[in-house]
């Protein structure tokens, strides 16, 4: 994995994914190490994403590395009309690794092709966000002690949610059974159902989020965004139908954990936060360990 860019979750084999998770576990035991000393990591955020950027920067800082970069494109040369290629080529000279967040889809793949140093995709539009997927997998394995044969319930915006698509593909390595719960406007796209069919994996689709979660191992909740609806009335009607409330967790399995890529708006009611099955805040902390693991493997440390 040394010098290999991480652009899409499909760039890593099952074995490579498991190596990241194993190493992330070691960083959780011992998060402060000075293995990145003398290394410079560039974080190029062409659109703001405070949470992801801070998670990467925390990972680098805890390993003793230095950060250069910008947190939105207004403070970069792209406002002067510089092409992505030129920015990447220049920053390659100043750093050992580039972390890029960009609103244009495919920009991270392209950056990986023109950069002289490895590139980590921290989100390219609606396409991919592989470090999020790896931290989701880490959280699932940590709470279930395994990734194999799990009952995975995914709720919310299944049409546009990139975290959903990447997680779905990654979990195909581990024989998951999928349960998709969404309004019909935001159903899981046909291409992903074809993907699951090709892999011989079972899935079920629901439009109603009631009385179906009793055999769930993981519930992965995502935000239903208003701007995804062409009809605002339709949004008002559906927005409250996909909220997870504490009362719904009665009778669910003891090992069930609730995940959410955050930020949350109202799709998990606040009364769930104190339930031991709520895992989304710890999930965010796991992001730091996972990113420490990814960075060290790519830099060959």
């Amino acid at each position, binding site marked *: 994995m040394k010098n290999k860019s991480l652009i*899409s979750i499909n760039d890593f084999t099952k074995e490579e994914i498991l190596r990241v998770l194993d190493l992330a576990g070691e960083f959780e035991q011992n998060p402060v190490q000075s293995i990145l000393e003398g290394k410079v990591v560039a974080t190029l955020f062409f659109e703001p994403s405070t949470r992801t950027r801070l998670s990467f920067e925390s990972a680098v800082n805890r390993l003793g590395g230095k950060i250069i970069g910008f947190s939105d494109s207004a403070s970069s040369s792209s406002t002067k009309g510089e*092409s*992505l*290629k030129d920015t990447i080529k220049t920053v390659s000279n100043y750093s050992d690794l580039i972390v890029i967040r960009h*609103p*244009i*889809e*495919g*920009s991270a*793949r*392209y950056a990986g092709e023109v950069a002289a140093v490895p590139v980590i995709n921290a989100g*390219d*539009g*609606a*396409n*991919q966000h592989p470090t999020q997927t790896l931290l989701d997998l880490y959280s699932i394995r940590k709470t279930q002690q395994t990734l194999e044969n799990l009952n995975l319930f995914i709720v919310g915006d299944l049409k546009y949610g990139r975290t959903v698509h990447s997680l779905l593909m990654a979990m195909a390595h581990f024989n998951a059974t999928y349960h998709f719960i969404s309004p019909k406007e935001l159903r899981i796209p046909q*291409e992903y159902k074809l993907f699951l069919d090709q892999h011989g994996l079972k899935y079920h689709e629901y439009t109603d989020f009631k009385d179906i979660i009793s055999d769930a191992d993981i519930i992965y909740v995502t935000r239903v965004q208003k701007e995804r609806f062409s009809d605002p009335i339709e949004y008002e009607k559906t927005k409250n139908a996909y909220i997870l409330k504490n009362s719904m967790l009665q009778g669910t399995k003891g090992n069930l954990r609730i995940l959410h890529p955050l930020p949350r708006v109202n799709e998990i009611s606040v009364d769930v936060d104190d339930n031991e099955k709520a895992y989304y805040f710890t999930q965010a902390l796991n992001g730091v360990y996972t990113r420490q693991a990814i960075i060290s493997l790519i830099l060959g440390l």
Partner: protein
Amino acid sequence: MDKDVKQLKVSAIRNGTVVDHIPANNLFKVITILGLDHIDNQITFGTNLESKLLGTKAIVKISDRFFSEEEINRIAIAAPQAKLNIIRNYKVEEKKQVTVPDEFTGIVKCVNPKCITNNDEVKPRFRVISKEEVSLKCHYCEKITDQEHMVFI
């Protein structure tokens, strides 16, 4: 007799390549793909000819030009059923069928307006995910462009 009439519609060439069974509405796409609008060779073509296979078809005859496997296969994106005849001294020396390539660069625009290839000077690049009804997966944004939405560059 019938065959002779067809022959006359697009006159024979002495040496070169005949591309037959092009869907009539994709003729100009094939011309673009093969770069025929930029070469000096003699080219004759006919379009909206009757075809049992395609309804209406087009045919292109290019004098003194022979294409590489790779060039030939590029037209498969627009004309998956195309057949090529290699002509030497007015005789068909060889017949070739196109095969759809596994991967290619250029030729088609990615359908996704938010793709880097539609926003920066980056050449589109695709993996072919279906060869019968040709369907393409963008190397960059990973979105799928199907036959219906294909725009040839």
